[in-house]
């Protein structure tokens, strides 16, 4: 109940354009959930499995991998380790979230569970704490509903649904994240670090397990430490020819 009351003030807080964007993001996650549920039952998992997994893990990429590894006859321990490697990025996400987005208290456990790529990037893109909290909770709760609901629909429909790629839904996720991080790229140091991170990640993809390229990319944060022309105090060596 408190959440419902809270949500009303949240909707007033957020820009309607962002709110519609969040709704679309949640719907597309639901559609990908449909394909997740369908794939899981097609591979021999019982109906409830993708729904349970969607509810308790709530991190799509790791769930697809987990189901794929088990279905291919892989060791459950391997499936867990691969999933955890993919989900390790939530730790730096949590460090970057301004304190106050995930508040101590009874809401904390739910707020913690709602942390994902989209809720974090939406929060970081907002200018002040009320709007950061609003974006985080709206997106997080929307995903908590849409992802398992989609998985259930897909599990029930089974073989009838296959390819969400035909709708271009796989382009939505990177486009959403890109659109929301662009304003942060105005900072020259951040831009250099981000581009360096992209290079590191792309170069690592052929040789590393899923999840690791993005973690290796974190090394590029060091580029932010280099002096840039944006710095208020120009360094003497920059004046030299």
């Amino acid at each position, binding site marked *: 109940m408190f959440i419902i009351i809270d949500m009303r003030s949240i909707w007033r807080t957020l820009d309607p354009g962002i709110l519609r964007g969040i709704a679309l993001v949640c719907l597309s996650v639901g559609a990908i959930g449909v394909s997740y549920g369908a794939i899981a039952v097609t591979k021999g998992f019982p109906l409830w499995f993708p729904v349970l997994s969607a509810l308790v893990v*709530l991190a799509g990429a790791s769930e697809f991998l987990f189901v794929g590894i088990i279905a291919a006859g892989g060791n459950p321990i391997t499936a867990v380790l691969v999933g955890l490697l993919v989900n390790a990025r939530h730790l730096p996400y*949590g460090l970057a979230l301004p304190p106050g987005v995930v508040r101590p208290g009874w809401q904390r456990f739910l707020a913690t569970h709602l942390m994902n790529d989209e809720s974090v990037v939406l929060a970081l893109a907002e200018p002040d704490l009320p709007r950061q909290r609003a974006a985080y909770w709206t997106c997080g709760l929307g995903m908590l509903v849409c992802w398992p609901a989609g998985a259930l629909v897909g599990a029930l429909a089974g073989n009838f649904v296959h390819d969400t790629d035909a709708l271009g839904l796989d382009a939505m996720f990177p486009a959403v994240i890109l659109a929301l991080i662009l304003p942060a790229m105005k900072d020259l140091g951040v831009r250099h670090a981000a581009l360096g991170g992209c290079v590191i990640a792309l170069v690592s993809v052929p040789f590393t397990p899923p999840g690791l390229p993005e973690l290796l990319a974190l090394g590029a944060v060091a580029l932010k430490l280099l002096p840039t022309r944006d710095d208020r105090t120009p360094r003497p060596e920059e004046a030299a020819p």
Partner: protein
Amino acid sequence: MTSRPTVVIALLVLSAGTFAFRFAGPALRSRFSFPKRAEDLLGAAAIVLLASLVATTALTSGHGFSGFARPAGVLVGGVLAARKTPFLVVVIAAAATTAILRLLHVS
């Protein structure tokens, strides 16, 4: 085979481990106060992580290239976003571009 108890236990372990990753960041942030410069670096780290996620999810599938349709859609979305196009239009345009390219058999 896929519903053996060990598989369900494995799922619950993945869930608990993921929760621990999610819990650790805010817990550390609320316990210690970071200097402004360190906070800026943590913010930059999240942007670097998200940017690299854009690169890998736009350009790769498994260990190889994703094909042209998806990155083309993401590029269209990125250009529109840089021109301050509304968020909803950006996201729809990205998906539509990729869908149309696939319809035209551009993989």
